[in-house]
């Protein structure tokens, strides 16, 4: 089976105040198969966010290769990266990142605008997806009128509406209480099981990470316990 995501010997260095700069990732390799559920664990500063941006095709590696759906993101221009994100990846953020003063349906329909889907079809699919995450009764509510858990479920619906093969969740429970966090994780697990979507959850919370069948531990820009290629 072709892996959905292939990360080969990836480093990412940020230029900073002269010299070598900051090396956020120091040589990381792993693959994620279609339909896998993976947790990436690590303390802050371990390179989690950098890795998330690479997996999400928001950024390119300094060296090494990141392939998503078989395509090397270093070879794609900004336009192609944008359509790759739109088609293959759904993002779930710690801060939800919903558009304020915008009804839930419109928030969920947002990625479909950039996929070139017509308005009527956007509305239909956004509704259906909101119903699938249990928010049929909250279609026209604005983010401020929703609880934290409901907001995160709207964000999950937005991540799913384009039917991506990969959902990247960055600390999805970080802004929620434990019970609500469990609910959101339950939802992600259910969607993973029912829809066969690969889910990558990035977290520093071991309890949350324990819900994933596979865990990758990141420390100081390196995977812990993984064989380090070339060293």
């Amino acid at each position, binding site marked *: 089976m072709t892996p959905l995501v292939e990360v080969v010997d990836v480093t990412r260095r940020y230029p900073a105040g002269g010299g070598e700069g900051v090396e956020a990732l120091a040589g990381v390799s792993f693959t994620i198969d279609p339909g896998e559920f993976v947790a990436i664990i690590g303390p802050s500063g371990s390179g989690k966010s950098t890795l998330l*941006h690479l997996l*999400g095709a*928001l*950024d390119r590696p300094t060296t090494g290769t990141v392939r998503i759906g078989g395509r090397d993101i270093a070879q794609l221009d*900004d*336009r192609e990266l*944008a*359509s790759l*994100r*739109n*088609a293959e990846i759904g*993002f779930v*953020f710690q801060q939800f*990142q919903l*558009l*304020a*003063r*915008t009804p839930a349906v*419109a928030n969920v329909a*947002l*990625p479909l*605008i*950039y*996929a*070139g889907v017509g*308005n009527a079809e956007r509305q239909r699919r956004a509704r259906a997806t909101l119903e699938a995450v249990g928010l049929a009764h909250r279609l026209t509510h604005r983010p401020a009128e929703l609880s934290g858990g409901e907001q995160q479920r709207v964000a999950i619906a*937005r991540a799913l509406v*384009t039917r991506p093969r990969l959902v990247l969740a960055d600390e999805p429970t970080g802004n929620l209480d434990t019970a609500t966090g469990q609910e959101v994780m339950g939802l992600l697990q259910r969607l993973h099981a029912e829809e066969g979507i690969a889910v990558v959850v990035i977290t520093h919370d071991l309890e949350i990470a324990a819900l994933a069948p596979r865990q990758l531990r990141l420390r100081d820009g390196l995977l812990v316990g993984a064989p380090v290629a070339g060293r």
Partner: protein
Amino acid sequence: MSVAEAFRVAVTAILANRLRAGLTMLGVIIGVLSVVLLVAVGSGARAEVTSGVEDLGSNLLIIAPGSLQFGQAPSRSTFTLNDVERLDRALEGRAAVAGNLTSGETVRAEGESAFLSVLGVTASFDDVVRRPIARGDFLSDSDVATSRRVAVLGSSAAEGLFPRLDPLARSITISGVRFRVIGVVEALGGSFGVDRDAQVYIPVTAAQRLFGIRTLDTLFVKSPDRDDLDRLSTEIERELQRGSEQAEFSILTQDDILGVAGEILDTLTFVLAAIAGISLLVGGIGVSNIMLVSVSERTREIGLRKALGARTRDITLQFLVEAVLLCGVGGLLGIAGGVGLAVLADTFTPVPASVTGWSVALAFTTSVGVGIFFGVFPARRAGRLDPVAALRHE
């Protein structure tokens, strides 16, 4: 993302922040409104002058004493009735000749009195300088020949002197001399600040006797044929130089007057439009400023949109369309306001205002142009934001 889609997104964004959108538009609204309104006032003034000149009667030559140049004191007139007769003879019925003299006088009638322009005129005056009679008759040749003490009243003069009575066949007193009213002129309105309805016409001979003078102020020649004016003008000039006591005089056509007045008013309109244009420019800079604020306020939104698949072009287009929409809608509101105010001013104030198509079109295209011009910079800045940095932005 299509342009139609960009419009939808921009409308949503504008509606999500109505107050700010309204305040931003205000600058454009005021700019466009002033362009439309001020140009309307300028062209209103022009239209009034034009109709005022045309109201004098068509194909008219005005013969005034002196050389009529700026910075020169008006010359004293030495035109006399002889000049009217001489021109009349010389032009042999090809053109009508009239003359007048004017004096401001207090006119009394049955307990009422008013300060009016008293015009001593020849009998041809009503034809030559268009004074259509509403009731009764105008002065006749025999009235002039015999210095008969009869008068014709302008419409407001008639109302002022005889508020409740029929003025015909009643008496008025000018400088202590009684005149019998034989006619009333139709209402004509003002022209060049002269209220042509507050005038009293008496035989020029009677006027000369009354005021103790033997001169006329102005001569008028009316030709039935417009193409004849130039030739007439030359003929009149020759005739007057040969026989008149008036050494220096000017012959003006309506086109001469319109040309000079039109030039002045065109300059005025242009200056007004330029001033209004500056306020439109300031409004545009306001839009640019707000768009920049909006881009930095919405950095996270931009990052999010990019993460969800928006391309640089999509974001740029969204913000550009937003700026153009603000300016375009502001422009439409400004046009509505400008047209409304112009109509109000024209109806309820003495300020003439006529809205011109070109000013509306110019104001609208300028405001949309301003939107594009001042929207491009913030929009490109929005489009170029790095999604990772934008998402992290607090």
